[in-house]
């Protein structure tokens, strides 16, 4: 008589179909990154003008350029880690720590900016509803990231992945508001950065609900990607 394991192995073997290996995670992360930036830039431009002289400030203020670049790389590092981590057994703890350290530096830059702002705080270029726009513009990148990681890979901690892709996704509109809205570190912290935890929580809840509703485990014997 066959054991349970032998029976299962026989079933799984009988179910075997050729599978296409998952695409390299960093490549998918890069595509997500570019697509998300494109989306954020386009919808931001469609909903209002940029702050006058915003890009000139990048060249004239090293502090402004630094805080923008740190945020840019922080979100990129977090996104890269999430996609890499969706392949079981990939250990890139250093990448995550670097990303989180960059996120922390980005936040600290604005806290420091309360006392020593990179630019003279002003209402110039203020965007009505920037907080709502930050939330709304973050949602599609977050949903796309969660979908891409679950569609292509096998995240072992899907809620953590959702939280981090939510963080990376929400950082993009928050960052772009640097150029599309008024510059004042207090305003940035309250209206561009404070929505980020909301997006992270929404990502976790969304991922949890999606898993409960649709379930990753499809009919085993039908296979996943045959």
């Amino acid at each position: 008589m066959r054991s349970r394991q032998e029976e299962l192995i026989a079933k799984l073997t009988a179910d075997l179909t050729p599978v296409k290996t998952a695409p390299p995670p960093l490549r998918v992360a890069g595509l997500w990154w570019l697509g998300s930036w494109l989306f954020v830039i386009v919808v931001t431009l469609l909903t209002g003008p940029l702050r006058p002289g915003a890009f000139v400030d990048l060249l004239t203020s090293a502090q402004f350029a630094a805080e923008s670049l740190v945020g840019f790389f922080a979100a990129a590092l977090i996104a890269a880690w999430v996609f890499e981590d969706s392949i079981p057994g990939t250990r890139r703890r250093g990448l995550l720590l670097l990303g989180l350290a960059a996120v922390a530096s980005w936040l600290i830059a604005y806290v420091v900016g309360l006392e020593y702002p990179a630019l003279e705080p002003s209402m110039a270029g203020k965007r009505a509803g920037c907080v709502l726009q930050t939330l709304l513009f973050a949602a599609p990148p977050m949903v796309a990231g969660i979908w891409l990681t679950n569609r292509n890979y096998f995240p072992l901690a899907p809620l953590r992945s959702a939280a981090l892709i939510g963080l990376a996704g929400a950082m993009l509109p928050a960052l772009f508001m640097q150029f599309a809205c008024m510059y004042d570190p207090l305003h940035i912290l309250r209206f561009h950065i404070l929505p980020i935890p909301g997006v992270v929580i929404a990502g976790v809840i969304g991922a949890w609900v999606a898993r409960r509703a649709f379930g990753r485990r499809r009919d085993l014997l039908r296979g996943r990607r045959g």
Partner: protein
Amino acid sequence: MHADDENDWYDWMLLAQAGDAHAYNKLLASLSRAITSYVVRRFGNVEFADDCVQESLIALHEARHTFLPGRPIRPWVFAIVRNRAIDMLRRQQRRQRLFAVDIDDPMLPVADAAPEAHADDRRESADRVLEALPPPQRQALELTKLMGLSITEAASRAGISAGAMKVRVHRATRAAIRAVEADRE
């Protein structure tokens, strides 16, 4: 585990990804032995190891497209195994909580025995209730309430529609409640 095994696993996995059933069979057989040994060594429970191997093999099967050529196979396999083992331990804890005794419950007959004895009695009673259910209803409760699967996942496992699974869970819950009440009386 020997490096040779790892090389074999690697080769078999690449062949399996291309659809070679013979290589896949050898891979799963070899992995099931390695996983059993790993789980027994870490958790010291043969029965748990058996269930854990089953869960791990299913997860490995579902995730086989994520093994990327050129990367080592061992961390990939054991990350999945560890994840399944932790999931199973959580489910066990959930099960224990589900059947845990509220020793302050005034409705419970309080005897001179120790609270642990009551807890054991209640767990046995719960197991009896489950055993007494018709197999499809028992399976429905086990999949949804004990293993924590969603209705869709449970339905997929049982090979029925989600609607049918909902009805089964509902009926099973009612039957279990009736049985527990009868047991108390």
